[in-house]
């Protein structure tokens, strides 16, 4: 059961050279060479897509043992590049709707970097074990071990057990009861608040009876140009930190620090920011005892917000619920922007009267803990809610219209779309680009797609539109890409640029919260640039390319590098077309969601909704720019060949005839 001596030490820069392969059905472990994939598909999402194209056959359900669960890092993972702990998780996703389909998720933390220090760029898991197991990986070796002791445990206790048993410096990706019980939005959890959340890949682990992957590595990632790489990283960190004037000085809330032992922390290897707030001393409201957990992203919403999510839970119970969801292994985003709002609205309308005979009361923390436990154990109504809202409303035959107001497509709740996501302030016409990012994706695009709508919603509070449009010209090719007076003009270009950028962020990888680095208050034209100590100036949008080049030493010009992103995006589309018959008419199903009035008023001064006719023109423009057939939305043979995907072009078009 042990694979040995995989890495011919020190042969590569950036990549460590081997992909670990595990068949849990037969217990076989082997490894394959990363490098045949590296140049064309970079890493992470790109290499995963190529493996899925080769191995994931049409008709494979997420819970089929033949589904591949792919953990893939990129050439920057584990390096000094900003936020380099990231790793991509791919496969047929249980959350995907109406049928499960191939998509992706990713997480930060330290698991990805540790995997590379152990000598592996990624892990591909296939087959299913007949008893609970976990995978122990240490410096080029891997072992499938019995997880009888771990099955049923929450994610915190699972990690503690494995750290005590193996190595206190190990990093762990694991599932809680939700993953074991195949809840469709079960996460793959690492530490207290890093998770590959969207997609429900925790349930894929559960279906394979894989409780955890623990990894310890003492190797490293070699860098082709160490001096230049150091210079790039440090200068980028400095520029990112001063983009809004003064550098952040860390979390300063003496009251929270005193009361709850709160402090800020980095959430991923080599990140120069401190987005996470660690609470070390919060008294439990429902379960007695002290809560210790990191809180970030959407987690503060458990406490309730002013509008729409206005349940009254308070910070202490909110922290407890956030930690509980992480312990059970439930996805925060789906709970807070999908399941809970749907349940609440259905209750308001009298469609759902009680929770298995008990009262529905979102202001009561005990109701929440009960709800979360029921979902993760699939007990009572929890069994139906564990299917996520699109399937639950189908099973119960209620609240389908409520579901449609919250879930734009693919079984994923809204995100930066100006409609179902009422947390984030996306206004017209920014969400036109969001809609174009959503309409050809296979999931919520905003795990790595914040560059347009989210950046502009926040930077337009600091800088005038005229300034922002100037940056838009440099990045997207026209001022109209950003200028709000042209809501339906030149929008396909920024959408495609951001989709491709998203591929790069998921493949290198880089954090979506920091990249692309486009705006700053520190330059005359407000376009971000990084000045190296050598005097060289790197444009904000090109930082990823330069980091890639200095790390790997590959002689690829920037246009070729960006073509990798286009290649990967087209390959993913090819999987979607071949395996799931994705067509233009599926893309257009998103339109009614955006035809409802937006959440907040933007520069136009009134509540807007999508103009179908104008949008369809953008759709045509989008397909044309992508090189996809206007009638069907299928990448043309010519386009795929031009991207160096000759074999994909042939197989895809053969499968269509």
């Amino acid at each position, binding site marked *: 059961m042990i694979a040995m001596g995989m890495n011919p*030490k020190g042969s590569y820069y950036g990549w460590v050279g081997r992909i670990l392969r595990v068949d849990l059905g037969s217990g076989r472990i082997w490894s394959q060479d990363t490098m045949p994939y590296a140049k064309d598909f970079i890493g992470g999402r790109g290499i995963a897509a190529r493996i899925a194209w080769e191995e994931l056959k049409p008709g494979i359900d997420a819970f089929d043992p033949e589904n591949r669960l792919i953990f893939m890092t990129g050439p920057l993972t*584990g390096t*000094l590049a900003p936020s380099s702990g990231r790793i991509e998780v791919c496969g047929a996703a249980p959350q995907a709707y109406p049928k499960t389909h191939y998509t992706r998720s990713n997480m930060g933390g330290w698991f990805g970097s540790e995997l590379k220090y152990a000598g592996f760029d990624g892990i591909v898991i296939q087959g299913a074990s007949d008893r609970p197991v976990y995978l122990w990986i240490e410096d080029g070796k891997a072992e499938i071990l019995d997880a009888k002791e771990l099955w049923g445990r929450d994610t915190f206790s699972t990690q503690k057990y494995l750290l005590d048993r193996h190595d206190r410096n190990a990093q762990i990706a694991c599932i809680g009861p939700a993953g074991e019980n195949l809840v469709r939005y079960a996460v793959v959890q690492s530490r207290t608040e890093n998770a590959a959340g969207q997609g429900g890949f925790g349930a894929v682990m559960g279906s394979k009876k894989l409780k955890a992957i623990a990894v310890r590595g003492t190797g490293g990632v070699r860098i082709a140009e160490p001096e230049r790489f150091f210079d790039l990283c440090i200068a980028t*960190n400095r520029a990112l930190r001063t983009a809004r004037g003064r550098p952040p000085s860390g979390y300063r809330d003496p009251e929270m620090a005193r009361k709850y032992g709160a402090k800020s922390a980095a959430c991923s290897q080599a990140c120069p920011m401190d987005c996470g707030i660690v609470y070390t001393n919060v008294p439990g409201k429902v379960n007695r005892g002290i809560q210790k957990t990191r809180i970030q992203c959407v987690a503060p919403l458990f406490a309730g917000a002013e509008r729409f999510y206005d349940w009254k839970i308070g910070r202490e119970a909110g922290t407890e619920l956030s930690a509980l969801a992480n312990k059970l292994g439930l996805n925060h985003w789906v709970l807070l922007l999908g399941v809970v709002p749907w349940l609440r609205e259905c209750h308001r309308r009298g469609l759902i009267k009680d929770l298995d005979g008990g009262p529905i009361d979102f202001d009561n923390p005990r109701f929440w803990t009960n709800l979360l436990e029921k979902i993760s154990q699939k007990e009572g109504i929890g069994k139906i809610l564990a299917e996520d809202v699109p399937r639950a409303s189908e099973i119960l035959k209620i609240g389908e219209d409520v579901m449609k107001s919250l879930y734009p497509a693919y079984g994923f709740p809204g995100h930066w779309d100006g409609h179902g996501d009422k947390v984030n302030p996306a206004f017209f016409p920014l969400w036109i680009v969001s809609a174009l990012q959503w309409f050809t994706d296979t999931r919520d695009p905003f795990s790595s797609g914040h560059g347009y709508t989210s950046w502009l919603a926040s930077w337009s509070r600091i800088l005038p539109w005229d300034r922002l449009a100037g940056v838009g010209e440099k990045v997207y090719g026209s001022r109209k890409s950003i200028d709000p007076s042209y809501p339906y003009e030149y929008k396909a270009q920024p959408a495609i640029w951001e989709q491709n950028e998203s591929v790069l962020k998921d493949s290198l990888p880089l954090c979506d919260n920091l990249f692309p680095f486009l705006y700053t208050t520190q330059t005359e034209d407000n376009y971000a640039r990084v000045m190296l100590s050598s005097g060289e100036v790197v444009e904000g949008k090109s930082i990823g390319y330069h980091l890639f080049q200095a790390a790997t030493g590959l002689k690829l010009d920037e246009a070729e590098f960006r073509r990798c992103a286009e290649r990967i995006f087209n390959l993913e589309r090819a999987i979607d077309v071949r395996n799931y018959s994705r067509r233009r008419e599926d893309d257009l199903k998103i339109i009614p969601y955006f035809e409802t009035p937006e959440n907040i008023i933007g520069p136009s001064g009134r509540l807007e909704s999508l103009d179908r006719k104008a949008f369809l023109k953008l759709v045509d423009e989008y397909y044309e720019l992508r090189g996809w057939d206007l009638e069907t939305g299928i990448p043309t043979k010519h386009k795929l060949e031009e991207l160096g995907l000759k074999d994909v072009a042939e197989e895809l078009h053969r499968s269509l005839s």
Partner: protein
Amino acid sequence: MERPPPPQRSGVVLPIPEKCKGCGICELTCSLIHEGTCSPQLSRIHLQRDIFTEECTHSLCIQCDWPACFFACSVGALFIDRKSGARTIDESQCIGCGSCAKACPLNKNSIIKYNPNKGVYFKCDLCSGRQRGPACVEACPWEALKYIPASERG
């Protein structure tokens, strides 16, 4: 046997734990600058993070006034850097015997480590020869590491 007199005093890099965010930039910087590799294992500064509290403990060489490592080396691989005073291992002289690590009073915290690829021991040399001083101090985004030159040490 009488103790030999201490050599020239050294500067030191001091961690300020309350400012640290646990990002590990110091570790990766150290191994990158010294070894051309990003590897916490090959770093001269070591960070231990608690996964539940994100509490960080740092270990790195305190550049002792009376450096046991320096006196323990029988092949003359340890030397005192003239500019900073850093107790430094000359890799070309090191035979990998580990006497320095055994002599170090703090070595349970990984102050002097072994590099299996090169067959030599390594420790913090305050980036001797680097014009801008210790790279970890330069790289830390939070000013959680401070360089104190010999003349300013208490």
